[in-house]
């Protein structure tokens, strides 16, 4: 794209959303305590940025740090307190 004439109408792009690495904005990082985790996937359901990954049924959830903004919703919603928010520089 070089000028406004090259832009698509309707504000769409053909890039994948994965290409925008919003994880660089983060100051707090969710850390999952696998001893406490019951694999209920509540964190996966609530993550507003689709940054909790469950690769196969029965697997533990993982955090996609390229896109996790560190909002802490997963930590807040975890029914067993398995996710704590840690300062990036403390990890």
């Amino acid at each position: 794209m070089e000028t406004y004439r090259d832009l698509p109408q309707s504000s769409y792009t053909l890039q994948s959303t994965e290409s925008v690495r919003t994880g660089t904005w983060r100051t707090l990082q969710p850390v999952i305590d696998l001893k406490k985790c019951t694999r209920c996937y509540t964190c996966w359901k609530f993550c507003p940025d689709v940054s909790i990954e469950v690769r196969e049924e029965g697997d533990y959830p993982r955090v996609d740090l390229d896109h996790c903004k560190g909002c802490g919703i997963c930590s807040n919603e975890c029914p067993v307190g398995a996710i704590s928010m840690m300062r990036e520089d403390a990890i």
Partner: protein
Amino acid sequence: MIDLMTGNVAAAKAAMLAGVEVVAAYPITPQTSISEKLAEMVANDEIKAKYIKVESEHSAMAALIGASYMGARTFTATSSQGLALMHEMLFWAAGARRPIVMTVVSRSLGPPWNIWTDHMDVIGERDTGWMQFFCENNQEALDLILLAYKVAEDKEVMLPTMVIEDGFILSHTFEKVDIPAKEEVDFFLPPFNPDVKVNFRKPRRYGSLVMPDWTMEFRYNNYLAMEKAKKKFAEAGSAFSKAFGRDYSSLIESYRCEGAEAVLIITGSAAGTAKVAADRMRERGKKVGVAKMRVFRPFPNEELLKLAENVRTIGVFDRSYTFGYGGAIYSEVRNALFSLAADLKVKGYIGGLGGRDVTETDFEKIFDDLLTLRRSGLASNQVDWVGLKDGSMRW
């Protein structure tokens, strides 16, 4: 076929004739009877549309943006606080270039709570990127919806449109309306077939993050589309005239402006009253006319300049107020005409807020005020409030 109906029924009939495919609406006075009528039409299979019952106007607009992305022709209607609640989504619809058409049954914004007409709700949304067409009567409440789809869905425009009818004055008042035949409308308005719609075989992301290096270019394209819409409205209006015999080929309708010494610019239903007042003034030998601004967004600069070439005293009647300055239409008209010679007089009048009646006598007094201004060259105020209980008995 000519029938007797309210402005709201006329709006619902227009949506039906346009062949809308998705309606999402939340009822709010004085719009409610539009959503009721459309729900009834869907229930009775009079239109093959999906009616989405939503919990708020914000959701109504969000649902229509999604439906429009799927390639559906969409419609909704709202008023006042409901329109204000849509505010965020109005920007989304315009930025996403979705040609959604919405009737706004204009109503005052609270507090104080008031369900009657004025244009504060609509003017409050003038900068959202929507086109804004104002109706004078119930016939226009129907016709302008059909025109709105024609202009909005033009591939060079692709912008959403508000068709504004005055609450209760049009929405709940019966008038004769000429309803065009469905086949004729189908010919005038072919099915919606946008270039951009969701295609599961070719995934795209919509409305996604844009870095500062491209946002201005998206905005610039919206500006270009809005500019093109002026010509497209005039073209669609001429085609409408050929198809249905009613002329909408200009963004500003001139009424008795030939040789006028003063002209009043006005929008909405009050234009009809101002026309009667102009007739009475002409009978008394006073040369005045009315310029009905049918389209406020895009702003009709060129037609306005043409009007002002022949008339040097112009009044602007706003049924709204922009706090801290004056009527929005007044300030924009004045701004548009600023480059003309210094002998041009432009004065603003605010009136009819919250459904306050504006009579022929009020307009006769405004015309007299304008003619005095023309002779003396002096105005007591740049903006006067009409019909205000201030004890001065001026009006």
